């Protein structure tokens, strides 16, 4: 068994690199675009700080529609768009586009929920001290929910590690694709088990790091 694994080790390393590449870009886009989007959703909710019910219904709807798409279908459906953005529809970079598109609304929703957990009374106290909306967002909402935001990042990393395994379908590679190609198609059960163990370890590391960060950031109890 060990021989088999050693033989494909270089390919495992390449696959891990591809997974890492997909995850980093997807997470970065999700956080950079999803955070403002989720914050906007929180702010324009009916009865919130900048209540805009109609706009909320519109954006909320779009977010739901994208989230409803099964990832595999989204991956295929937006091929023309992917080609437009990164110039190709196959390969690791091409998978990043659908991954990011599906991660943005997912993360935005997590952020919205996290912000909803911030005590409204604290926001009101800040308002009574003359804080403007920008100050409320940065100094109250993000500060009070920083542990929740770290938790949201952890959740999204784990679920998109799983999503990224579909990447093989368009030649994206990654560790999940490797497991399917060697373990499943070639009936090399030992390699499949080894790869799955590797993925389990990665998930454990992500989750443990996430939990640790959440605990460090949370001063509520």
């Amino acid at each position, binding site marked *: 068994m060990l021989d088999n694994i050693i033989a494909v080790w270089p390919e495992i390393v390449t696959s891990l690199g591809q997974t890492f590449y997909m995850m980093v870009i997807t997470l970065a886009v999700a956080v950079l675009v999803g955070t403002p989007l989720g914050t906007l959703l929180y702010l324009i909710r009916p009865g919130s700080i900048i209540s805009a019910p109609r706009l909320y219904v519109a954006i909320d709807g779009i977010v739901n529609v994208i989230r409803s798409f099964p990832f595999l279908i989204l991956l295929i459906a937006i091929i023309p768009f992917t080609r437009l953005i990164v110039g190709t529809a196959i390969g690791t970079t091409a998978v990043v586009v659908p991954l990011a598109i599906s991660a943005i609304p997912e993360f935005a929703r997590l952020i919205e929920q996290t912000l909803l957990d911030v*005590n409204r*009374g*604290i926001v*009101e*106290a*800040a*308002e*009574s*001290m*003359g*804080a*403007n909306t920008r*100050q409320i967002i940065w*100094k*109250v909402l993000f*500060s*009070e929910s*920083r*542990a929740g935001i770290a938790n949201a990042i952890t959740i999204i990393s784990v679920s998109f590690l799983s999503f990224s395994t579909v990447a093989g379908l368009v030649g994206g590679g990654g560790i999940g694709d490797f497991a399917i190609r060697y373990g499943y198609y070639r009936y090399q059960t030992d390699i499949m088990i080894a790869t799955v163990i590797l993925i389990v370890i990665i998930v454990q590391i992500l989750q443990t790091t996430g939990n640790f960060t959440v605990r460090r*950031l*949370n*001063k*509520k*109890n």
Partner: protein
Amino acid sequence: MISLKNLSKTYATKDGELQAVKSVSLEVAKGDIYGIIGFSGAGKSTLLRMINLLERPDTGSVHVDGVDLTSLSKKELLKRRLSLGMIFQHFNLLSNRTVSQNVSFPLEIAGVPKAKRKKRVAECLEIVGLSDKANAYPVKLSGGQKQRVGIARALATQPNVLLCDEPTSALDPQTTESILAFLKELNEKFGITIIIVTHEMEVIKTICNKVSVMENGHIVERINMRDSTFVPQSKIAQFLFRNEIEFQGKEEIANAR
């Protein structure tokens, strides 16, 4: 110094419109400790929150030091709020900030430079006697300590008015007493005008010099506490001033039988 004229506020609820405050007018003079008392849902908190425009009145005007706050631009209003400190029943401290960072918060909002902030935070913590807790997080504090941090935070920008929304309702009787004594001291020492909303008669009796009794969105009675000969006229005021909740309870039990 504070003059409220014909304030009304209506909320849209699932069961139709709810008029929380119905054409209320109120005058508060400099140096007053003005109580607003009533039962839950009487509209007293809404009235208080209209003074710094956390709630915008549907009609009427709010004059503070001669300026009509309802006519100000958003930016001017935010600036004005710095002179109106506010404290809350549930303290509303930022849980991820230490005590001193909480007190520093309104100063950051106001754009005070760091060195000045540090000095003012130390002063305010000194005033409320919590200098030793400067680096503690709110979760480690008792209710009374949290409220004192709330007061220190409200004092940081040197307001001349302190709005208190049920400041002692979440505290035990002893802590209530010490917070009230403290508010009184602030009033006497710094000349801060205090407006205090409460459902506790003890609060009114202990520190207020004037009181308005609210019921169903109206002020039903105004009483000058210095006038020891007053006789409560409205039913609710009689109830509150008789302080006979116990007796009332027995009567109800008797009636039920």
